[in-house]
């Protein structure tokens, strides 16, 4: 299944290549330092061994220690800046990603493609296009780890986390859960198969389900009774949702928050947390009635609706 061991050793993303470069430079610097220390320690132990009488002479100047402390500090700050630069770049998710949603649970990964295609443990993605993984967990903390991408992100229950990658070329790579999650933690592994864009399109087409993620969300919007209050013209005074995603929302508390996924999630599960200004806190909590995957479908629909209305979903 895996093409070769080299596949695991070499990074296949731009971020991975930058991590490797930083690592190799730090490794080289470390080796030089260790070699110098070993040479000094061994040299001193031989030259100044007891009974040889070769230990008279001036002592080391104490300004030395301030010198090497400051030199080290400068080198350390340089490495910190380099590592931070690569890290911060990776934290910024680029525009126009293909958004795939992952729900982790003991002990499997469930992936949902935008078209509604689902897969378990074995993820398929296109090469040459930024892919964003939005992670949720149904139970404990898990961690999405693809060593070939040098990429890891925890999936934390109760919130969404995200990461992204752009794989250079087709190939099959390991997927691991990296955060200890209980008895079968080491079995929570799979693969990420990078396909060429054409192959990916074909792969999706062969698996087109009856409804996409957003369509399923639209169905839930009615089935769970959301539309009863939130549709324009409803009897209940509730805010409209169709153009909400990514927009600022004024709260009764006087704060303003952006209606991102975390906000929408909280609004559905913990409605009393953020009450919208000008509305009564009448929304019931759906925390016992909706599971992670359906929540994800609803949010996908809200996002799609906003985009259809010309809102690109980004604040």
């Amino acid at each position: 299944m895996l093409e070769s061991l080299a596949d695991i050793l070499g990074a296949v993303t731009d971020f991975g290549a930058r991590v490797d470069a930083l690592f190799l430079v730090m490794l080289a610097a470390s080796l030089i330092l260790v070699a110098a220390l070993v040479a000094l320690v061994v040299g001193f132990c031989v030259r100044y061994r007891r009974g040889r009488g070769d230990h008279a002479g001036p002592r080391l100047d104490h300004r030395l220690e301030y010198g090497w402390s400051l030199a080290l500090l400068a080198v350390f700050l340089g490495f910190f800046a380099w590592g931070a630069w690569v890290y911060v770049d990776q934290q910024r998710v680029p525009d126009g990603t293909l958004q795939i949603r992952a729900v982790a649970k003991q002990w499997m990964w469930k992936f949902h493609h935008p078209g509604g295609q689902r897969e378990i443990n074995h993820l398929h993605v296109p090469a040459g296009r930024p892919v964003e993984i939005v992670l949720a967990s149904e139970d404990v903390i898990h961690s999405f780890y693809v060593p070939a991408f040098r990429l890891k992100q925890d999936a934390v229950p109760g919130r969404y986390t995200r990461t992204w990658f752009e794989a250079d070329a087709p190939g099959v790579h390991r997927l691991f859960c990296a955060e200890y999650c209980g008895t079968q933690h080491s079995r929570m592994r799979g693969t990420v198969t990078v396909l060429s864009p054409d192959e990916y399109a074909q792969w999706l087409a062969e698996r087109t389900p009856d409804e996409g993620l957003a369509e399923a969300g639209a169905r839930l919007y009615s089935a769970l009774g959301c539309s009863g209050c939130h549709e324009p013209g409803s009897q209940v005074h509730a805010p409209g949702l169709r153009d909400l995603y990514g927009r600022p929302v004024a709260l009764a508390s006087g704060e303003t928050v952006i209606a991102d996924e975390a906000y929408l999630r909280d609004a559905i599960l913990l409605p009393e947390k953020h009450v919208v200004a000008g509305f009564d806190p009448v929304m019931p909590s759906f925390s016992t009635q909706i599971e992670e995957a359906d929540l994800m479908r609803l949010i996908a629909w809200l996002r799609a609706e906003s985009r259809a209305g010309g809102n690109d979903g980004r604040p």
Partner: protein
Amino acid sequence: MADRDTLPRPNYLLDGGTTLKRWLLTTDHKRVAWLYMVSITFFFLLGSAAALLMRLELLTPEGDLLTAEMYNRMFSLHGIIMVWFFLVPAIPATLGNFLIPLMIGAKDLAFPRLNLLSWYIYAFGAAFTVWATVAGGVDTGWTFYTPLSSMFANGNVSAAILGVFIVGFSSILTGINFIVTVHRMRAPGMTWFRLPLFVWANYATAIIMVLATPVLAITLLLVFVERAFGIGIFDPALGGDPLLFQHLFWFYSHPAVYIMILPGMGVVSELVACFARKRVFGYGLMAGSILAIAFLGFLVWGHHMFVSGQAAYAGLMFGLLSFLVAVPSAIKVFNWTATLFRGSIVLETGMLYALGFIGLFTIGGLTGLMLASMAIDVHVHDTYFVVAHFHYIMVGGMVMAYLGGLHFWWPKLTGRLYNEFWGRFSAVAIFVGFNLTFFPQFIMGYQGMPRRYHSYTPEYEPWHVLSSAGAVLLAIGYFLPLLNLGWSMLRGRAAGDNPWGATGLEWRTTSPPPPHNFRNPPVVQREAYDYGSDDAPVPDREMPR
């Protein structure tokens, strides 16, 4: 046995009662140190046995020796025992307990009965935890991450948490005892800047113990409350926040890393100075860097959470501070090396351990910098790279320092000399076995091998085999000091008061010391490590060439 009579009297081993009851009710800090030494040795062997079982399981990619549940229990048991019942008390409660009063010229610690109480709390809490872990099973890892530990794990998690909570009080009481002792009990002339660096290191450690351990206690109590009563603190299903646990846990557990390494640095400073017959280079900066590490160590906990979903800006601050805390650590390595310059060096057992410490600690520190470089951490966090890194610090550093210190002060502890050849042999064997066990883990870690994996994918097998082979060698290495030191208690030659020709007040009393440490209260007129002066003590035994 012929030498038994040649030990000076009175000494604390023979005078003051030799029955079990007199030992268990002693308030002599030197005897309490022995109570700790026997206990931590027991726990070290227990924790090592768990590790050995894990290494055997990992010989093959399939999980075939232990069940997944049993494997998870083994690494939990290993971590809990080694961190809390071995590493934290390892040097402070044994060598620190024994030496601090001797080094500052005091008759005992400030609160001798509190000292004994610390041991009873430790022994009770640790035994209780081990019982809970063995009887009911705990498979959360030593980190007890929520909501796994609070709402999902089966087994005796609550009992284990209570046990660790109890042991925490032993740390706090020991810490208070050390702080008060160093402030109040120093002999005339023993000014702060004449204190041996070992005392500085244990003083700084005591401060961390007193400040950090209560946070651990609170955190564990909150997990217990969530588990037992379903009150939502960490589990989002109950309205809690799982990352809150990580912040609280690492707020203790990162400083705890320095609880585990600072005393080792103190030991190494004593050893290097004595066996190079040189004053430690840059004494002031060495003491200052101990305090700097203790202080900065409280501000870096978020570097355990770079991929947890913590804000990027918070991550940047924690990354920066993690690089800063490495500066005083690096100063120490350079200054030990500089101490060797124009020294009069002899490679006794203690010195070999100290040099081993410097090498392994340096590798552990440098790989720590790689981990603090946030981008690299995204890749190697929660892999064997991290496992190797902290074992280089904790085992390569702390255990080497502990064994080096144990050999160095053994003549003072027992009045007897061990076999020097086997002492040196064990230091080299442990160094080689250690590297063979843990260096391959850096490589497979960078290749992506996640930690806490019962079974794994086959491409990592060669490194695991190498690591397991090293673990067997390491295990044999650890038995050598046990045999050598044990043998010396029965058959060893009488050591004399100061076999290494070391400065320091502890060498100015008899070996073993009398129950109240000094026949005449000492007065200090010299700096620490006064090896350069004409009347510095000389080794009273023939140095092997």
